[in-house]
């Protein structure tokens, strides 16, 4: 018994180890291939950018520019495919379709294609990052393997294997290296995984088209048909803001890297391109920050812009302080000034709003007040109208039917000697009675008289008495009468809920609680039926919800598939 289970446990553990190893292998492969594509990417973008930029002054640069773009796309495609190793499927991106375009149109549409610029950004970043990651991963794995098999080869180096501060020249030390290689292997796997995550995340941001429509979708109205280049899906037009930011970032990165290349070619020394980077980053961060800031709602936009500018200024001062060789932290004064300025502005806004109120906010508040008032008015009018109809029925049609019944009754008596005609008259009287009963039900359905006469508690008691299921009503915590329109909403909530109980849970019993809490009327109808109430659009519950919502109330339905339904309504009573 225990042997069997331990075997099973070992099998599970072994499987897990195998899975881990497979995954680690895939990750290593991804990083290694990424190193190779990084070399390709570096060659492609450096060649393309330098050749195109240097020849762009001559016309020959323009077709080269288009050729470069194609090269960028295909190189980026290598990394899209590589991602399939870990994601199961390749990343997908689509470009504008340039078929049938004139040369000039193609120049312009290529330039406006966001994905191309994202590809170029990827190539630039990946050529550094991908190579570095691959180098780290491969050398780490190689070191771990070397350490693992240390006892087999340490003797071949007479001076001992140089392992950091230690020199391994005896068998016990070599065996110790083997043991140590196991936690190092785990660490390597972890580091590789982090690098993979970083690189994949970046690839997803830059290489994956963010909107992939189903293949075969029709061309956008009025636009040229767009077909996928690398995969299925249709690309939409690029939003202007994102496009300009991508170009800005790509150009900044290129200039910065070129300067770094020049610095390296000139033999290193003081890393002056740092200042170039700083100069490039300032407008880029302003560009990005302000773009985000203007998306904020108008009343907070000024504040957001101030925050962005403050952050950028802080960044610049700190960077300058760092580049100038650290020393006393003088940027604190700038930061302090910015914080004080921010607080002052914030307080001023607050005071201003307290004193004068925000113009727009005041307008909106007034509008909401007006709407609330008029909506309530409309509901009051409607309730009054329903009551008037009920009264008209009562005094008109119903009274006439009663009078008719009386007259027919008297006629019937006078026809004692003509039984066959008396039977006809009796039948007519029965019809009149039935018509009256129908009118009575109708009147109760639109404006129950007992609600107007005796209020919600009595009306709900009456509902409970009439319901075909046992109903317990607790209205003891209802002190005063809410407004008629609130009363009527609460009444119909109970009526509809009890009808539902009778319909869907015939064997159940129900409990109704009416309670006043502060300015809110709470109505709860709970049953012990099967639950699973349907509150989709068009159902009776949906109608109730809308009725309650019109009074700024809430309706909550708790109806698990097993175990009763509970309908909770909160209605603000107003004044």
């Amino acid at each position, binding site marked *: 018994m225990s042997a069997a289970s331990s075997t099973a446990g070992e099998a599970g553990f072994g499987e897990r180890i195998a899975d881990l190893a497979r995954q680690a292998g895939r990750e290593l492969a991804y990083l290694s291939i990424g190193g190779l594509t990084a070399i390709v990417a570096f060659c492609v973008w450096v060649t393309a950018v330098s050749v195109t930029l240097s020849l762009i002054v001559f016309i020959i640069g323009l077709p080269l520019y288009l050729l470069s773009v194609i090269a960028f796309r295909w190189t980026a495609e290598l990394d899209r495919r590589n991602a399939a190793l870990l994601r199961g499927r390749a990343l997908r991106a689509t470009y504008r379709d340039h078929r049938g375009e004139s040369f000039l149109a193609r120049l312009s549409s290529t330039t406006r294609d966001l994905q191309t610029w994202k590809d170029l950004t990827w190539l630039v970043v990946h050529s550094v990052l991908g190579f570095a990651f691959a180098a780290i991963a491969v050398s780490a794995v190689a070191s771990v393997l070397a350490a693992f098999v240390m006892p087999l080869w340490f003797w071949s180096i007479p001076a001992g294997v140089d392992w950091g501060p230690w020199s391994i020249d005896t068998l016990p030390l070599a065996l110790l290296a083997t043991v140590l290689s196991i936690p190092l292997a785990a660490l390597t796997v972890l580091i590789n995984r982090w690098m993979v995550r970083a690189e994949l995340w970046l690839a997803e941001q830059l290489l994956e088209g963010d909107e992939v429509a189903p293949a075969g979708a029709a061309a956008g109205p009025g636009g040229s048909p767009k077909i996928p280049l690398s995969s299925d899906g249709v690309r939409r037009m690029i939003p202007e803001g994102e496009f300009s930011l991508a170009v800005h970032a790509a150009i900044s990165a290129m200039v910065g890297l070129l300067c770094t290349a020049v610095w390296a070619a000139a033999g290193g020394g003081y890393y002056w391109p740092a200042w170039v980077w700083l100069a490039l980053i300032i407008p880029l961060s302003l560009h990005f920050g302000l773009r985000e800031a203007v998306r904020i709602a108008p009343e907070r936009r000024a504040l957001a812009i101030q925050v962005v500018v403050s952050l950028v200024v802080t960044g610049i001062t700190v960077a300058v302080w760092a580049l100038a060789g650290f020393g006393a932290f003088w940027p604190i004064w700038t930061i302090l000034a910015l914080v004080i300025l921010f607080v002052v502005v914030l307080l001023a806004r607050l005071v201003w709003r307290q004193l004068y109120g925000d113009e727009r906010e005041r307008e909106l508040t007034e509008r909401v007040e007006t709407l609330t008032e008029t909506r309530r008015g409309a509901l009051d009018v409607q309730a009054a109208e329903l009551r008037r109809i009920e*009264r008209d029925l*009562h*005094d008109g049609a*119903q*009274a*006439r*039917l*009663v*009078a008719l*019944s*009386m*007259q*027919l*009754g*008297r006629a*019937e*008596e006078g026809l004692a000697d003509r039984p066959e005609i008396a039977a006809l008259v009796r039948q007519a*009287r029965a019809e*009149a*009675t039935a018509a*009256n*009963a129908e009118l*009575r039900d109708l*009147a*109760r359905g639109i404006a129950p*008289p*007992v609600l*107007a*006469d*005796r209020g919600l508690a*009595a009306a709900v*008691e*009456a509902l*409970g*008495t*009439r319901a*075909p299921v*046992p*109903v*317990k*009503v607790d209205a003891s915590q209802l002190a005063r009468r809410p407004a008629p329109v609130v009363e009527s909403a609460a009444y119909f909530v109970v009526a509809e809920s009890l009808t539902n109980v009778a319909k869907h849970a015939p064997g159940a*019993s129900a409990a109704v609680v009416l309670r006043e809490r502060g300015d809110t009327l709470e109505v709860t109808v709970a049953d012990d039926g099967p639950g699973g109430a349907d509150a989709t659009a068009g159902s009776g519950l949906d109608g109730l919800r809308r009725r309650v919502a019109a009074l700024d109330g809430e309706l909550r339905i708790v109806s698990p598939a097993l175990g009763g339904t509970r309908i909770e309504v909160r209605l603000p009573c107003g004044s």
Partner: protein
Amino acid sequence: MRVVIAEDSLLLREGLVALLREHDVDVVAQAEDGEGLLRIVGGHKPDLAIVDVRLPPTFTDEGIRAAVEARRRRPEMGVLILSQYVEPVYTAELLAGGEGGVGYLLKERVGDIPAFLDAIRRVADGGTALDREVVATLVGERRAGPESPIDSLSPREREVLSLMAEGRTNTAIAEQLVVTPGAVEKHVSSIFSKLNLSAAGDDHRRVLAVLAFLRATDGG
């Protein structure tokens, strides 16, 4: 029998007066509202007041309030409420005093003249006349809770119970169900023992006992 009527609709009031006079019921005075009812009850010493629930000036339940007040002033008078609708809460208020001479009927029942006249006489004599709609809200399978003793009644016994609750005498019940008075008596004693009620003397007490029982098992 001296009768007063409180009814605001001229059409119905005149129809009612004509009908009653044809059957030798003495309609001594008429009123259009609650105050008028109290005035004529004070002046004419009637045996019975027929009162509409909905009267001016509020057109809500003035009639009930006026009828209860009139009864307080003249306890020996019967009160018959006529209404277009039946509300259990009004039934409860009318019966709250515990005395007889109370009726609550839908207006359209007036068309069944023999039954209506029977109800009038019963109420004027201190009996009870409840509309079958009122009784239906109290009796019957649909009202029965899970362990209600009403479940133990046979269908026939349930019919007899309903008619008792309406205020009918054994004779009237026998007539209605086309059985002998002896059979009705047997049903009645069976019902009382099944519901654990002590057999009551007069018809009105019987009604009250039955109604009290029904309301107590109402679940509400």
